[in-house]
């Protein structure tokens, strides 16, 4: 049976049309950029998870929107991603989160930077569509994204 992992994905967009991403190493892709978010912990709501993650950025969050739900299925793990968009916030970001560098990246440059393969699919949709996004993504045994089905 697969390990089930509920996780949040948090896009924070400022008024310069930039989103806040974390620079991290990746097993296959070298340095990549990923949105904030992590495993929803025991007894934590997804909303509380978003608050917790945002606290580490130094930003004061006023409003959050749940914009998508993506189920990712691999050989061993099944992720349920709760994707949030935050556009209403105050304050300045810290330099890093737990040793990872935080960067504001222009949305028009998202194609040029290294994003995880699934994020490359859903990030443009979450950031441009007014509708709620629901989808199922399937990975092969080598963790290559092979299928995306949206509802």
């Amino acid at each position: 049976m697969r390990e089930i992992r509920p996780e949040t994905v948090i896009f924070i967009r400022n008024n310069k049309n930039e989103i806040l991403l974390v620079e991290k190493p990746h097993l296959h892709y070298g340095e990549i950029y990923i949105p904030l978010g992590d495993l929803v912990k025991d007894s934590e709501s997804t909303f509380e998870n978003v608050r917790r993650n945002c606290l580490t950025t130094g930003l004061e969050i006023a409003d959050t929107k749940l914009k998508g739900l993506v189920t990712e299925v691999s050989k061993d793990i099944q992720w349920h991603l709760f994707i949030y968009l935050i556009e209403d916030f105050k304050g300045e970001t810290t330099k890093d989160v737990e040793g990872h560098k935080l960067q504001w990246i222009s949305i028009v440059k998202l194609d040029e930077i290294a994003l995880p393969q699934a994020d490359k699919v859903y990030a443009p949709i979450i950031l441009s569509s007014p509708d709620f996004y629901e989808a199922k993504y399937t990975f092969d045994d080598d963790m290559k994204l092979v299928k995306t089905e949206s509802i």
Partner: protein
Amino acid sequence: MNNNIKNQFPIFSKNKGLVYLDSASTSQKPKVVIDKLVEFYTEYNSNVHRGLYPLSEKATDEYEKVRETIAKFINAEPNEIIFTSGATEAINGVSRSLYSSGFINVPPKITLTDLEHHSNVLPWQDLQPEMIQYLGLDDNYLINDTKIFKDSDIFASIHASNVTGTIIPIKEIITSNENAYSIIDATQSIAHMKIDVKDLDVDFLTFSGHKLFAPTGIGVLYIKEEIMKELNPFKLGGGMIDEVTRNGSTYASGPTKFEAGTPNIAAAIALAEAVRFIDSIGFEEIKLSEERLRLYLLERLDEIENIEIYHPKNVTGKEALAVVSFNIEGIHSHDISAYLGEKNICVRAGHHCTQILHRDVLNVPASLRASISVYNNEEDIAKLIEGLKGAIKIYKK
């Protein structure tokens, strides 16, 4: 052996499935030590050295007996033992006292190692030394460079690394320049091997109690008797005086001179209990068990692809403690640590207060560290390896 010992630590029965591999950060506490704290506060809590009533006399008697227990534990004399809040306070105090007592040149020349914890770097940098020599690590994470510069005033070093587990050849280094004052931080080694201050011939030796199964907030500073007599105190206040007048003061002699203020009495008494706990097992047994697990951990870590291990290879327990740091290429140590945390596996991620080692020698910003103590067993290691394999699956996405 280890399950019997594990049962003596209440935290493992309160947290079923807990895998605690972070003893280099702080050790868990056996029931006898916790009971000793409770006993003090419930049966004879009072201040020491001041009251002429039975409770205070009992507290004073128990507190002073700790000095004897610790002295015997490290082969010192009771009047060479000072209680501090921990090794950090002790090193800060020694650095200032050496300076204020005129024992060293101004500005001094200091010898450290590349493995130092920040607590053994910053107090020396604060003296604005003329020069700091860092004894370097070889390719196998060992210190083979054992020659202190001939004009060094001070040799300050950890006894064992909190990152690589490397045991520093202290005796050999001290012998290379007997004119330099030696200050050894045995915080990492004290719970894992016999320390003999006379055999090492150190001038100062310190350790924090909380890594020795004792509570936090208590530590020990050994000062060689002939040095202590001439050394200025590093804390001033109540309890350490001979006489105070409007125009000046004179100080008490011996350890009292260095223990201004109300000490952490309960923690000191519990520290003695921690030493008795260690004595009840014996260092021979401890070393045997930890060495077996160290080798097992290294063998199992080899199963992990793209792992870089920062720990000496093909050495015995005489050269390395069971403290092993590593990185898995392509995954940040914080992410792995957080994943392991989800599985109730406690390891440490970060630079472990050794930025010089991480940045200048290992060339990484951070690492993961697994550290072993008497309560660990093979099952703990197996769960760690399973956890690391799980983390790799998660972060492959």
